[in-house]
């Protein structure tokens, strides 16, 4: 007969912590259209993560709540997706991945700092490292934009620049928005990751009898690219 002595494994702590975040989200954001649920990776990571579907006009408030009350202090990535064939209320999507790292400046003692070593077996509740995925849908528009969270996480700064540069989603309130990966003199309005832009020779299929493709011409040959 096996009974648990109350010592839980880390996985269970993580699930509990994720559920706590969901409960807090439901309490705090009731009625705004925010959906939150615990999801599991289908492979790889053995820990659950928190998935939040945030309405567009609440993004900055939700970000602040996540940062200061839920402890998501690390902005891993903010990226954008263009769905030209998607549902009408989701033609553009901004997906933000955040993590709770719970990094604190190591305390000082006698002129030296003390290392902060966390024993992974005993982390609980707010201390458990957690992944968050926030998805914001933007309805059909020529100038998609979302509030900027530059002042909440400094890391969001360059991520938003890159998203604007490549996908074209603007971030309101973002200072010093500029091209960061493409050349500075790229034509205004050229955002290559939108679906209408195709890659060069995009319709080349593999020709088994013409491995080098010498006999084959691209359909859009002759047009300026």
């Amino acid at each position: 007969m096996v009974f648990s002595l109350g010592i839980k494994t880390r996985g269970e702590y993580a699930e509990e912590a994720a559920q706590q975040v969901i409960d807090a989200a439901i309490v705090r954001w009731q009625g705004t259209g925010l959906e939150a649920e615990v999801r599991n990776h289908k492979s790889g990571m053995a820990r659950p993560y928190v998935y939040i579907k945030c309405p567009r006009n609440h993004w900055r408030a939700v970000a602040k709540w996540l940062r200061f009350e839920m402890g998501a202090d690390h902005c891993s990535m903010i990226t954008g997706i263009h769905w030209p064939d998607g549902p009408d209320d989701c033609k553009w999507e901004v997906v933000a991945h955040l993590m709770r790292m719970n990094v604190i400046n190591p305390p000082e003692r006698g002129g030296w700092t003390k290392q902060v070593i966390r024993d992974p077996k005993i982390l609980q509740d707010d201390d458990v490292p957690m992944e968050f995925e926030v998805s914001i849908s933007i309805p059909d528009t020529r100038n998609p934009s979302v509030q900027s969270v530059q002042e909440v996480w400094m890391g969001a700064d360059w991520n938003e620049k890159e998203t604007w540069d490549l996908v074209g989603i603007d971030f309101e309130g973002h200072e010093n928005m500029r091209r960061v990966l493409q050349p500075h003199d790229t034509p205004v309005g050229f955002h290559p990751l939108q679906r209408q832009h195709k890659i060069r020779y995009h319709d080349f299929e593999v020709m088994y009898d013409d491995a080098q493709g010498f006999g084959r011409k691209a359909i859009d040959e002759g047009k300026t690219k």
Partner: protein
Amino acid sequence: MGPQHPMTHGLWTLKVKVDGETVVDTIPDLGYIHRGVEKICESRDFTKITTYCDRLCYASANTWSHSYIYAAEDLLEVEVPERAEYIRVIAVELQRIASHLMWLGAFCPDIGNLTAFVWCLREREMMLDLLQELGGSRMHYNFPRIGGVKRDLPIGFAMRARAKIKLFLDRIQETEQLLDESTVFLVRTQGVGYAKPEEMVNWGVTGPNVRAGGVNYDVRWAHPYSVYDQLDWDVSVERPSIKGADSYDRYRVRVDEMRQSALMCLDALNKIPGGAETHYSEGDPMIISKAKERAEEGKTGFHHFEDSRGESMFYMVGGGDQRGKHPYRISIRSPMFLTIPYASKCMIGYKVADIPAIMGSFDPCIGETDR
């Protein structure tokens, strides 16, 4: 400091505003090798994208292709056999050692110590020989497959790996001794480039840079994947000064990480299911499991991975062309993309001659920054 510069470790420009000899402001300018990998991968099968991910950060190719493979397995819902996970860990940790050796080999000439360049490249050749046995090539191996690995450990690999890793552990001690007893190295790296861990996390810096700040955050134990929770290892953390982590701390973290990776490899060779001396042929279910080729629309997968330089992440959305054979969108998070602006801010207040010491200690790799 323009794109062609021997100290910048990659192709980017750092515009530096100076007041005499002191740095007042810096602006990094990236994008010189922006290849549009995210766009190209939208027209590639899932198996073909691995080759692109190798070339994202060329100094540590295995870590990036594994990072992609875990995300693809999350998207395609694939179970990986345990022996394959062990082989992957061995490959990743060997690659981590090789990457850190390349970093040290490039960092020391910046400080002025050219001997360490030759010594580190010599050790790196040892590691590259082992990786060549596993993967087939010196740099871009295309080693992991969705569902497992390409090949099992070759016959005799365990014996050679153990011998080489033991030799490496002795030699890294020599290199450490060379650098720690060199006054020039100590003077140029200590007290230079302070970085506080909280600021680093706010900016999005991860990996050895934040561990140099005294906090043992590592994706391998915080969000465990693969078999890291079954291996016996310690996180490499430094004890910095009050002002933050300086370049010397970052150097020490990476040397310690090299040791830990070497010990992890030896441990994995001991614990691998099926034994390290047995060799299964390609396609055997012990090392690879069948994976489906298509991802339906609406499915997403992402995975945080501890790369040599920080936390890398792939976010993939299924449902692209050819009824799901291609991903709809693949989004790559590179740790260096956020570290380089932060490191540029770290330089303010120091002399121009400290710029290579600070920049080199953050270990920039522009391949992953400008995907």
